[in-house]
């Protein structure tokens, strides 16, 4: 059945000597499919002539769960989608519900949200860089990246007690006041971080092997990227200047100056460069934000029991991996009627088959890595 849906290359063009193709099943237990992605590859020798992604091994029915929880109860669940960037997930959900309620978080809460979310973006990109380099065979960057990520996780831990699935924000603002040294901690992390990114670059950016492995691999042109609905670094590397933080500012992003890095060729190398530059930009946002954190309340007036008026809302944020959207339908009760989540990983993954055709087996892991997918988010 599956084979009929996926337009594999026809037999005539796929083989020269009439040799049979190999169907190689990668995953769901494979060291570099980043979780439980299963990829069926059709190989002619080592050349990939077709692929099919099988997802759903981590499906937990998050959207259905939402229909049976109150708005507040559902908030921790979204942290479990993209568990590498839990803070961003939480921000998207809280803001979507706030929009539905017609409420707004106070300025202080919004600035702290920006700081934590940008730190989370850096952490997510660091994790991506380490694992992506590991997939391509560079063992060492992973440990440097995790060392820096650890600093960020420590800040999260000090702020809300959790490191990974933080549930840092609440609908209407924040539950916890920022701890005393938050600014200092963030600054202590951000000041030397630029140099650290330079270190990673010195290991990879001009390395002949790295360039050879990433340049021209998995090209996605701007038009194709838009057609596939790609977002985040994937679409920006193709040269489309699309960043929701600028296009539809949320939280407090309109107050800060930052650039949207874009690439030209839309290949794996460009996505690498774009993400590195994004880390630098996030660092700048953090530094701007800690300079002036407004005083005042951290929780808006939303009440203890949330009963949004009947209606629907779509709210998207720029998560580390792309456009993370929440579409919530309310029927006026304390529980959402329907929550639909637009996970960036899933939409970006759809371009995988397009990107891999004609490349070699070794490029499969490079392309899976460069899409920066988290299966918790793909499967929900």
């Amino acid at each position, binding site marked *: 059945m599956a084979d009929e849906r996926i337009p594999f*290359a026809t037999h005539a*063009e796929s083989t020269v000597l009439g040799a049979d193709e*190999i169907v*190689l*099943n990668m995953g769901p237990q*494979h*060291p*570099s499919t980043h979780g439980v992605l299963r990829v069926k590859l059709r190989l002619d020798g*080592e050349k990939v*002539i077709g692929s099919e992604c099988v997802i759903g091994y981590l499906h937990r029915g998050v959207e259905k769960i939402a229909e049976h929880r109150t708005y507040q109860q559902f908030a921790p669940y979204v942290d479990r989608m993209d568990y590498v960037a839990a803070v961003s997930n939480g921000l998207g959900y809280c803001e979507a519900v706030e929009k539905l309620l017609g409420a707004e978080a106070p300025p202080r809460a919004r600035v702290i949200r920006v700081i934590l979310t940008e730190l989370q973006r850096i952490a997510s990109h660091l994790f991506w860089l380490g694992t992506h*380099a*590991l*997939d*391509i*065979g*560079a*063992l*060492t960057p*992973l*440990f*440097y990246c995790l*060392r820096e990520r650890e600093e960020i996780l420590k800040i999260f831990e000090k702020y809300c007690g959790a490191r990974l699935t933080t549930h840092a924000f609440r609908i209407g603002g924040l539950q916890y006041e920022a701890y005393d040294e938050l600014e200092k901690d963030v600054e202590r992390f951000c000041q030397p971080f630029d140099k650290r990114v330079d270190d990673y670059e010195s*290991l*990879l950016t001009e*390395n002949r*092997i*790295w360039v*050879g*492995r990433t340049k*021209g691999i998995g090209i996605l042109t701007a038009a194709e990227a838009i057609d596939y609905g790609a977002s985040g670094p994937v679409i920006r590397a193709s040269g489309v200047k699309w960043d929701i933080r600028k296009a539809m500012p949320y939280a407090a992003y309109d107050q800060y100056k930052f650039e949207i890095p874009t690439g030209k060729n839309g290949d794996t190398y460009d996505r690498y460069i774009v993400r590195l530059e994004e880390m630098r930009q996030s660092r700048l946002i953090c530094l701007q934000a800690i300079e002036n954190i407004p005083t005042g309340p951290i929780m808006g007036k939303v009440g203890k029991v949330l009963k949004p008026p009947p209606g629907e809302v779509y709210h998207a944020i720029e998560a580390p991996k792309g456009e993370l959207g929440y579409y919530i339908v309310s029927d006026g009760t304390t529980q959402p009627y329907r929550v639909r989540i637009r996970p960036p990983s899933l939409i970006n993954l759809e371009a995988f088959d397009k990107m*891999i*055709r*004609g*490349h*070699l*087996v*070794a*490029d*499969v*892991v490079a392309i899976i890595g460069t899409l920066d997918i988290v299966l918790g988010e793909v499967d929900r």
Partner: protein
Amino acid sequence: MHAVIQYVISIWVPLVCMLVIVGVLPLCTGYIVLMERKVMADMQARLGPMRVGPHGLLQPIADAVKLLLKEDIIPDEADKAIFWFAPLISVTAGMLAISPLAIGPWFQIADLNVGLLFVVGISALGIFGIVLGGWSSNSHYSLLGALRSAAQLVSYETAAGMAVVGALLLAGTLSTREIVAAQGDYGTWFIFAAPVGFFIYVVASIAETNRAPFDLPEAESELVAGYMTEYSGFRWALYFLAEYTNMVVVASIATTLFLGGWLRPFAGTRAFNFLDYFPSALMILVGAYCFYRAPKQPVKVQQLFMMGLGLAFFGVALILAAPLLAPKGSLVASAMPGLHGAFWFLLKVGSYIYLFMWLRFTFPRYRFDQLMRLGWQFLIPLSIVNVMGIGLALVLHRHWGWSHWTAFPLTTILTLLAAGYLGWAGEKKDKEHVFVGEQ
């Protein structure tokens, strides 16, 4: 030479060496793995194994015991006889290849007159173990790994062979012992006469031993574990043993051919004779470091272990220093070349292996087509040019009376120019060759 020593060398040393290679080499391999993990940890800002024994010094033994006790799984669909037999081929080939290698002027199993040819030939047989193991596993990953391995070995064996030929031209013999002696006669190691040849051999030997950045046959992020995917327990350990034995073999070949074998640096120069004290000094330093670290170990047993280790190093230092301190002409003093030769040889082999590790933790992995392109379009032509260059230098030297100091630098520069041209041409071809998938 002392008659007693003569007797011991000719009769007993080969026997003991044989036992040592079969019995102790696996242990040494374990410690090379430990060294690799420690070096890796050092480069990655962490500590590495620290639990079993002080500083993880007993980790290799724990690993070996674990692997021995593990269940030996043979997949139902596998070709059982070949699956069972394949790792043995790899290990046997690796160990057999050590036999003609001279670890110092004393320690050698057999001084074959075709020594180096034997080593290269036998170690290449190890690939059968990999190919058969990969094929018999009846798994796609294993098959792809085995195919990659075979293709890689065929391509790089050629370049490595040509690099070896270059050094053999200089030495004029295939016997490992005489090759080292020839370097003594030249007064310089062959790495300085043929640096390009050494470079080619380094790259090709990394590829031959399937080490990163050429570890495609077992690329873990692509092929899980390549040809070893279906193996487990001790059979898996045999493949591992074969890989590290091969590392020792290629490092020994490189040491013998290019790094002066067991010769001390500046062996012929009297002014550098103080280097004779270097082995003992190094051992004393290591021993002292063990004593320095001992009080910092958390458990009493570990403290004692560290002190014992320190004492052992002092003992080795004493053994190495004894021939220097003993009166000239005595039995002990005549042990000098054997003991110090072994020390220098092992030091060079260790450094070469360290270079392997260093490269592994620094570079990403090549893709298969890139690996092939590098081999066929760059290394093989360059190795041929290198052989011609060395031949030219020898002709200039022997028939035209040029001195070494003009002939070899000239041909080296010519070879480097050729390398530059090859690199430039390859780059140009890469730019024309646009890799486009079937869209």
